[in-house]
């Protein structure tokens, strides 16, 4: 009797579930959740907009206003200064979409729309095109391309080399921004899944036969469950932080693209 014997098979099953299956054509098991999140965002924004007043009427409007205020002051004006005003709707869209997707993904049985590479790469490309567009609009194409190299690097070959490195790191933002969000969500769900599997495997012997061995495994199973609850709370925190980080980095990239440095 060894509860770990079934673990590899169960983990393989978990991984294939998390990887997402194609339901019909390009529609995977993740697609319904993306549509759900979009609907949730629309419902949240439009119901709040209808009740808008100078002083928030109820807790719901207050909560929505808190998110708007947080994005505007902490992410927008905090990073971009007074130039942030026209970018705030974009940051808010990113922030609320990613936050809701992450939080809905934590509900057992549902999937995080951001837990798949497809969604995060799409979000990253949107962000990339956005800051490149504003960079070119602010500098003009030629000066934007040159603006990656910092001023004051004297020998021309060295400046060219620094420009090349900065350009590569700018292109790598596509990779790091998308992989960060995806890997955080994916890793978190694997962790929770493995702990849930362990809890099940350790408590199952107790149901089939009541022996001293089974009782010991049952106690260990309860400890796995406690760990699961603690990490579940941490995943809620990670979901919020990752939405914040993605939006914050988007705003930093816009800041870097539209200022001289």
């Amino acid at each position, binding site marked *: 009797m060894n509860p770990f014997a079934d673990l590899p098979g169960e983990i393989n099953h978990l991984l294939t579930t998390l990887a997402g299956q194609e339901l019909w054509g390009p529609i995977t098991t993740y697609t319904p959740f993306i549509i759900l999140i979009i609907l949730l965002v629309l419902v949240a924004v439009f119901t709040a907009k209808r009740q808008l007043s100078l002083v928030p009427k109820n807790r719901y409007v207050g909560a929505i206003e808190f998110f708007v205020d947080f994005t505007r002051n902490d992410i927008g004006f*905090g990073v971009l200064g007074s130039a942030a005003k026209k970018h705030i709707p974009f940051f808010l869209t990113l922030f609320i979409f990613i936050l809701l997707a992450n939080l809905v993904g934590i509900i057992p049985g549902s999937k995080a729309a951001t837990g798949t590479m497809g969604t995060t790469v799409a979000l990253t490309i949107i962000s990339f095109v956005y800051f490149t567009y504003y960079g070119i609009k602010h500098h003009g194409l030629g000066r934007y391309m040159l603006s990656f190299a910092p001023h004051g690097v004297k020998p021309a070959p060295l400046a060219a080399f620094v420009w090349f490195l900065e350009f590569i790191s700018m292109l790598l933002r596509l990779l790091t921004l998308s992989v*960060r969000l995806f*890997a955080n969500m*994916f*890793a978190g769900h694997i962790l929770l899944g493995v702990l849930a599997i362990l809890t099940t495997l350790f408590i199952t012997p107790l149901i089939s036969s009541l022996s001293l061995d089974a009782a010991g495994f049952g106690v260990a199973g309860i400890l796995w469950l406690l760990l699961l609850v603690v990490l579940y709370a941490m995943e809620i925190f990670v979901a919020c*932080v990752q939405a914040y*980080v993605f939006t*914050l*980095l988007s705003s930093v990239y816009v800041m870097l693209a539209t200022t001289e440095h």
Partner: protein
Amino acid sequence: MGALTLGGIGLGAIGFGLGAIGAGIGVGLAGLGATQAVARQPEMYSRIFTVFIMAAAMAEALGLLGFVLAFIAMAA
């Protein structure tokens, strides 16, 4: 024999562990700096927190790249 049959998974896990060292040091240093900065100037908390999150995210990205590569190594 067991080590050989588990080769892909074992090496992937070891590779991720090695990658996590650097990311751990990076996030730790960012946390150290942020804690000291807040201790010196508590009124700058929100600005310092933003900078900390940015620095931690940069360091963490490498660890997470290692995490994804470990899975690719296991699948291959």
